[in-house]
């Protein structure tokens, strides 16, 4: 069981700075996800941890050992590739046994461990097939077995589900989480899919343009994003300018802001004073439709877009010159499914403030 510590990691490709001095520590047994859009440096970071890329600056530690100069083959890690990389000229059995054979494990033990790991991923009985004879999902499972059979200290996943269809992705997502709970191994996962990250992670590291934007549990990131980028990358968003009316003390800290012509209470952490200009994050799902008007709390406007998608209705409403996105659930979703041109009353149930000082998206 090992922790992974990344210190001041920097990696350049020619003139491009792919990873820009990032630091983080993953605790022993944790499942941490590097989350971000394409090109944010998450895969590069992962490859530096694995050893397939050499860091230009910084250090990588497994526990207390500095790993920068340790060759890949000696790092005792298991990596599941995006493209799977199953050996096409070997049967399933030989693919899974490969790592064990490299270690010089005895023949009968190899047979036993391959059998056990194939059972773990529900691929028993496929030992004599070739990878090309398997479906995408089956290949994925075999690749997973191959990664785990050597009992590595650290498991790493590089966007393993991106080439699968939605249903398979759902299944394998839960499978990966189940396996993590079962084995308790330190796991590092890389993805651009927020839903995947939320489903399996203990801790998420959001990356953008080579930098670490924010880290936290899924709830932290959803409730209290610290930058416009994180706020927009996780879930859907409205950014609304507001003015602080008063700072309310107590736990949780909150402030009263004036926005869009109403008074709302916003979650907040750092110090602001009354009169400051701030940016509010209002999630569309935190806006509800109301029929009764409460002065100072209800805002109203004209519906410009209305889309019914079954579980919810998506609206765009023009309020005080600002286009607000709202998602309605429950009965309201039927009431307003065809509401373009109508006037609608809305209330903001919850919002939070994006700290100043972060570059706008």
């Amino acid at each position, binding site marked *: 069981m090992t922790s992974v510590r990344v210190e001041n990691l920097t990696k350049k490709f020619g003139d491009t700075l792919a990873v820009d001095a990032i630091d983080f520590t993953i605790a022993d047994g944790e499942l941490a996800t590097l989350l971000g859009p394409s090109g944010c440096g998450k895969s590069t970071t992962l490859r530096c941890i*694995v*050893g*397939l890329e050499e860091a230009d600056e910084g250090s990588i530690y497994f526990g207390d050992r500095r790993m920068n100069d340790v*060759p*890949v*083959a*000696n*790092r*005792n*890690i*298991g*990596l599941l*590739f995006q*493209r*799977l*990389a*199953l*050996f*096409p*000229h070997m049967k399933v059995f030989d693919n899974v046994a*490969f*790592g064990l054979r*490299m*270690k010089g494990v005895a023949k009968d033990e190899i047979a036993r461990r391959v059998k056990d790991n194939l059972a773990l991923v529900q691929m028993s009985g496929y030992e004599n097939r070739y990878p090309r004879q398997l479906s995408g999902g089956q290949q994925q499972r075999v690749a997973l077995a*191959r990664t785990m059979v*050597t009992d590595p200290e650290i498991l790493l996943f590089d966007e393993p589900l991106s080439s699968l269809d939605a249903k398979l992705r759902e299944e394998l997502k839960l499978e990966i989480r189940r396996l993590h709970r079962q084995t308790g191994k330190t796991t590092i996962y890389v993805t651009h899919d927020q839903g995947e990250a939320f489903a399996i992670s203990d801790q998420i590291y959001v990356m953008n343009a080579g930098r670490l934007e924010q880290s936290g549990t899924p709830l932290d990131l959803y409730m209290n994003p610290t930058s416009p980028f994180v706020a927009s990358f996780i879930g859907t968003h409205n950014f609304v300018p507001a003015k602080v009316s008063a700072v309310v003390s107590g736990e949780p800290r909150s402030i009263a802001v004036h926005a869009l012509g109403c008074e709302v209470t916003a979650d907040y952490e750092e110090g602001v004073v009354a009169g400051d200009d701030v940016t509010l994050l209002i999630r569309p799902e935190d806006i509800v439709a109301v029929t009764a008007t409460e002065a100072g709390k209800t805002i109203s406007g004209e519906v410009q877009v209305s889309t019914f998608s079954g579980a919810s209705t998506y609206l765009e409403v023009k309020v005080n010159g600002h286009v607000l996105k709202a998602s309605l659930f429950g009965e309201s979703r039927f009431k307003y499914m065809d509401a373009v041109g109508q006037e609608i009353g809305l209330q903001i149930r919850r919002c939070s403030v994006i700290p100043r000082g972060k570059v706008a998206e």
Partner: protein
Amino acid sequence: MNGIKWRKLCTKTIWTAYLAFITIVLWMIFFILFTHSFFKGVTLQFPPEGLTFENYTQIASAFYPALRISLLLGVATSVFDALLAVPASYVLTRYEFKGKDVINTILLGPTMVPAISLALGFLALYPHLKLMDTFWGLLFALSIVTMPYMLRSVMSAFNELDPALEEAALTLGCGRVKSFFLITLPLIGPGILAGFMLSFIIAFNEFTMIIFIYGPKWLPASVWLWNMLHMYGITPGFAAGVAVMQLISFGVLALVIGVLGRRYLRGVSF
């Protein structure tokens, strides 16, 4: 018969006629001497008479030493090509470096230049290097013309090879050298074999490149046949020699296609 059916029938007839024509012409070019080698008679007649193997036995003592030399050169050239092409292809397909395009062009260049000009180059160079009428002299000359084919085949195999496979081997504890033999080589094997086949057939039959640099010690079959032709014209003995060359060439072709399967040949660019 309605319009569509009529058009289909016409198209089918035209294609069949075309293929038949090509086949017959090729048959005549490739196999006319082959057929005549089995018949008696000093000169070629059509239709030939007297089925016999005596033409083959007649030339045996004189021809077969030359044939052995051609076979040896064919195999040696292919092996030499493979040994050079594999590392070269690895570098050319996996790494970026300055002047890569220039090197690419140079390596594939011999196919774009008339063979005779290359051959004259060797004629000018070899006496100074004391490579006239030597095994290595002939080998180098033959590998110059065959290398592009081996290179193309092996490079194509490397391009198909997912670099992630080598990385996967690394993460599973397999060092770079070991993974070359366990992963890379088996997967580019078909490419090497296809290149080998091409190199062998070209080197085995090659004439132009070696006509200025052969000698009494190293006299390949193609030159021997030319000498025969020069001195006696087209004889059944000559036809027999040609037939043997053809048999070996097509035999190798058939063998390799049989081993690789048509599936791979589709991907090999000639």
